[in-house]
C-alpha cells in the first residue's frame, strides 16, 4: 500500500470530563473508500470534525499527505481547502443559489476569476446531475438535491480527501438513493473518501474497508466481507444484528447490487 | 449584498455631508460700523472682529421672529446697537433658553441676551452685566376704591384691565388666569392703555395693571387715579450674560449700556416694544 493520504495516530478528544474518543489509529490510502459505522454517540462525527480541524483533538497526530496538520503554526484554512466535507444537514449557504454555493470557495478562497469559477462550478453541478438547478436557492431544492449541491461544493475545491458525515441521515427514504448514487460514482472515479454512514448496502458494495467504532474507540476494522460476515468481535456482531433488526432486512449473502434495496430507516440523533 | 450596503452607506454619508454644510447658526450681520470701539474689548473678540451672542428667539416682545422670519425684539435691537458701538460684527446663535447659560459657560457663546433675570445660581456659573432694563408694575384704581391689594394675587378679586400683548398682559395671563385665580372673563384687554383707564373711570373695570412709568405719566392728567400696589412682577432687572470672570467684556457692556440708557435709546426701545 502506498503512503496513506490520511494517517491518524493515537487521536484523542474529550469535552470536559467526557471522553469522546481515544486511541484512534486510522490510515486512508489514495483512492480508498472507508466507511465508519457504529452506534450513535460514539464519536464518529467528532472524529471527522477533528480531521478537518473544525474542532481540535486533545492528543495524537493527524497527517495529511505527509504533513502534520494538527500542530501549532499550521495554516488551518489551507488544510481545510484540501479536505472536502459533506454534512448531515447539508448546510448550504441559504442566501446563495446552487451555483453561488459551489462558486464561493473558488472565488473567495482560490481567488479564481468569476468566469472561470462559474465554469468550474457548473461542471461540478453537472457531475452531481444538477446543472439545471444552478440558479435555484437551497429553499427551492429537495433534500437530496441540496445534499448533491453540498457534495459539488466540496468537490469544487479539488480536495485530496472527502469526508461524509452521515450524508443521508436527514433525507426522506426516497431521496437517499440519488445521494448514494453520486457517492458511488465518486468512489468509482477514484476519489479518496471517509464516510460515516449507516447505509450498510453502500458500505458493503463501495467500501474498501469498514471501521466499526463504539464508545470512542475502534473495535474492529476490515474488508466489508470480513467485517460484515465474519466479525471477530462480539460487539461488532451485536451492532450488525441490531441495525438489521432496527432498520430492516440485510439480505444475507445477496449481492449488494443497488442502493434502491437499502432499508428505509430513520436516523439516530447525531452525536455531539 | 455587502457591496449593496456599502453603496447605500456611502450615498447616505454623502447626503449627510451636504446637509452638514449648512450652518446651524443663522448669522445676522450688523451693518458695517466705521466708528472705532469706545471701550476695551477682550482680545479674542477684537481679533475675530465679531461677537457670537446667543438668544432664544421664542420670547416676544424681547426676542422673536418677525413676519419675514428674522429675529427682532427689544433684546435683539439693543444687542445690535451694543455690537455696533463695540465695532464688532454681530453673529446670532439661536438656542433654547435652558441651554444658553451652559453654552456661555463652556465658551460656545461670547455672551447671551435673552431677557435674563439675575439669579444667584446663575451668578455662580456666569457673570451679569449691569441691568439694561427693569420695570415696576403698578396696580391702579380709581376714586372710591374700598378694597385692598396688599399682594399681587389680591388683584384677582377684581375686574382687571390691561393693554393687550404687553408683559403685564403676559404676567396676568400666566399668574392669575391660568392658575384659576382670576376668571378669564374678568380680564379685559385693550388695544391702547388709555382705553383701560377710560373704562376704569366708568367703573367697568376696577383695577388696571400697567408699567409704573407709564402710569405716573398718565396720573399727571388724572389725579383721581391711585397706585395701590407696585412691584417688579412682569420684568425683573434684566442683564446680559457673559462668561464667568470675563471682566473686560462685562465692563464693556456695562459702559455701553449706561451710555445707551443716558442717551434715551433704551427708553425708545421700551416704548417701541412694551407700551
Amino acid at each position: 500500500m502506498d503512503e496513506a493520504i490520511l494517517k491518524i495516530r493515537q487521536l484523542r478528544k474529550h469535552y470536559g470530563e467526557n471522553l469522546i474518543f481515544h486511541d484512534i489509529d486510522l490510515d486512508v490510502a489514495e483512492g480508498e473508500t472507508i466507511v465508519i459505522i457504529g452506534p450513535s454517540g460514539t464519536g464518529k462525527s467528532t472524529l471527522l470534525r477533528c480531521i478537518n480541524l473544525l474542532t481540535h483533538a486533545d492528543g495524537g497526530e493527524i497527517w495529511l499527505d505527509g504533513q502534520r496538520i494538527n500542530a501549532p503554526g499550521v495554516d488551518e484554512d489551507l488544510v481545510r481547502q484540501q479536505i472536502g466535507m459533506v454534512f448531515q444537514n447539508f448546510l448550504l449557504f441559504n442566501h446563495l443559489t446552487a451555483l453561488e454555493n459551489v462558486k464561493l470557495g473558488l472565488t473567495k478562497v482560490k481567488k479564481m476569476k468569476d468566469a472561470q469559477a462559474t465554469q468550474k462550478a457548473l461542471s461540478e453541478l453537472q457531475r452531481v446531475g444538477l446543472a439545471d438547478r444552478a440558479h435555484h436557492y437551497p429553499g427551492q431544492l429537495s433534500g437530496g438535491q441540496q445534499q448533491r449541491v453540498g457534495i459539488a461544493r466540496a468537490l469544487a475545491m479539488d480536495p485530496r480527501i472527502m469526508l461524509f458525515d452521515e450524508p443521508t441521515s436527514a433525507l426522506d427514504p426516497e431521496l437517499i438513493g440519488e445521494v448514494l448514487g453520486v457517492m458511488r460514482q465518486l468512489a468509482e472515479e477514484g476519489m479518496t473518501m471517509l464516510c460515516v454512514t449507516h447505509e450498510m448496502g453502500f458500505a458493503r458494495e463501495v467500501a474498501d474497508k469498514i471501521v466499526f467504532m463504539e464508545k470512542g474507540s475502534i473495535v474492529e476494522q476490515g474488508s466489508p466481507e470480513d467485517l460484515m460476515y465474519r466479525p471477530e468481535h462480539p460487539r461488532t456482531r451485536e451492532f450488525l444484528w441490531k441495525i438489521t433488526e432496527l432498520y430492516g432486512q440485510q439480505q444475507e449473502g445477496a449481492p449488494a447490487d443497488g442502493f434502491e434495496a437499502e432499508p428505509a430507516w430513520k436516523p439516530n440523533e447525531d452525536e455531539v | 449584498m455587502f457591496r449593496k450596503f456599502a453603496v447605500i452607506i456611502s450615498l447616505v454619508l454623502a447626503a449627510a455631508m451636504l446637509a452638514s454644510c449648512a450652518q446651524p447658526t443663522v448669522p445676522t450681520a450688523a451693518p458695517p460700523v466705521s466708528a472705532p470701539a469706545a471701550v476695551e474689548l477682550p482680545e479674542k473678540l477684537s481679533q475675530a472682529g465679531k461677537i457670537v451672542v446667543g438668544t432664544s428667539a421664542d420670547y416676544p416682545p424681547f426676542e422673536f421672529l418677525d413676519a419675514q422670519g428674522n429675529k427682532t425684539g427689544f433684546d435683539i435691537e439693543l444687542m445690535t446697537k451694543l455690537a455696533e458701538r463695540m465695532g464688532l460684527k454681530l453673529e446670532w446663535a439661536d438656542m433654547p433658553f435652558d441651554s444658553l447659560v451652559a453654552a456661555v459657560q463652556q465658551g460656545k457663546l461670547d455672551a447671551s441676551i435673552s431677557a435674563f433675570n439675575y439669579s444667584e445660581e446663575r451668578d455662580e456659573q456666569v457673570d451679569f452685566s449691569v441691568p439694561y432694563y427693569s420695570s415696576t408694575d403698578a396696580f391702579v384704581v380709581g376714586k372710591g376704591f374700598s378694597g385692598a391689594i396688599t399682594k399681587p394675587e389680591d388683584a384677582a378679586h377684581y375686574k382687571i384691565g390691561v393693554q393687550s400683548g404687553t408683559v403685564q398682559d403676559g404676567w396676568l395671563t400666566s399668574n392669575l388666569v391660568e392658575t384659576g385665580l382670576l376668571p378669564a372673563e374678568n380680564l379685559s384687554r385693550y388695544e391702547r392703555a388709555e382705553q383701560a383707564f377710560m373704562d376704569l373711570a366708568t367703573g367697568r373695570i376696577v383695577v388696571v395693571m400697567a408699567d409704573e412709568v407709564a402710569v405716573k405719566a398718565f396720573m399727571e392728567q388724572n389725579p383721581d387715579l391711585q397706585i395701590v400696589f407696585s412691584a417688579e412682577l412682569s420684568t425683573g432687572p434684566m442683564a446680559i450674560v457673559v462668561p464667568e470672570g470675563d471682566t473686560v467684556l462685562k465692563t464693556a457692556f456695562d459702559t455701553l449700556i449706561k451710555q445707551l440708557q443716558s442717551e434715551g435709546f433704551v427708553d425708545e426701545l421700551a416704548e417701541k416694544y412694551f407700551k
Partner: protein
Amino acid sequence: MNAANFLQYIASGTAYTLGVTLIALPLGLLIGLVLALVYVYGGKAGSRSMQAYSIVLRGIPPIVLLFILYFVVSGAINLSPFTAGALALGIVSSAYQMEIIRGAILSVDAGQMMAARAVGLSRLEAIRSVVLPQAFRHAIAPWSNEVAIVIKDSSLVYALGVPEVLRRAQLIGASNQNYLLAYGAAATIYFILVWLANKSLVGLEKRLAIPGSH
C-alpha cells in the same frame, strides 16, 4: 407671517432633521456592526465589554450624551451643534444597533459558519460572505424601528440650537402664538419621514428576500 411662509419655514428644518438622521444612522450602523462582531466573536472579554457598553449607553438619556458631547468633550475638539448632535445620536444608536445586529447574527444557524470554514474560508471571510448577508436580512425588520427612533430623536438637537423642524416650530409658535398649527406641522413632517423610511425598508426587505425560504 402668512400660513404658506409659516409652513415653509418649519418644513425647511427638514434638511437638518434629515442631515442629523443620515449621519447618526450610518454611524450607529458602522459602530454597531463592529461592536456586534466583537460581542459575538470576541470571546468572553469581548462580550463582557460590549454588554457593559450596551447597558451604559442605553441607560443614558440621549439628551444627556448630547450635552456631554457638545458642552464637555467639545472643549477639546470644537464641534458645531449639528456635528455634536449627530455624533451623540449616532453613538447612542450604535448601542441599539449593536443589539439588533448581534441578534441577527445569532439567528443565523451556527452550521453556516461551520460549512464556510469547511470550504476553507477564513473566519473573517466566512462572517463577511456567509453570516452577515443572512444576518442583515434578519436585521431589516428590527432595524426599521431604530430608524424611526433616530428620526424622532433627531429633534433633540434643538436643545443645541440646530434649527431643525421642532426648534422652528417653537420659534414660529412663539412669534404668532399659534402653537397648535406649528407643532401640528412638525408632527406631520416627522410622521411622513418615519412613514417613508418604514415603507422603503419594507420594500428593501421584500427585494432582498431569499427565494424559497420562509
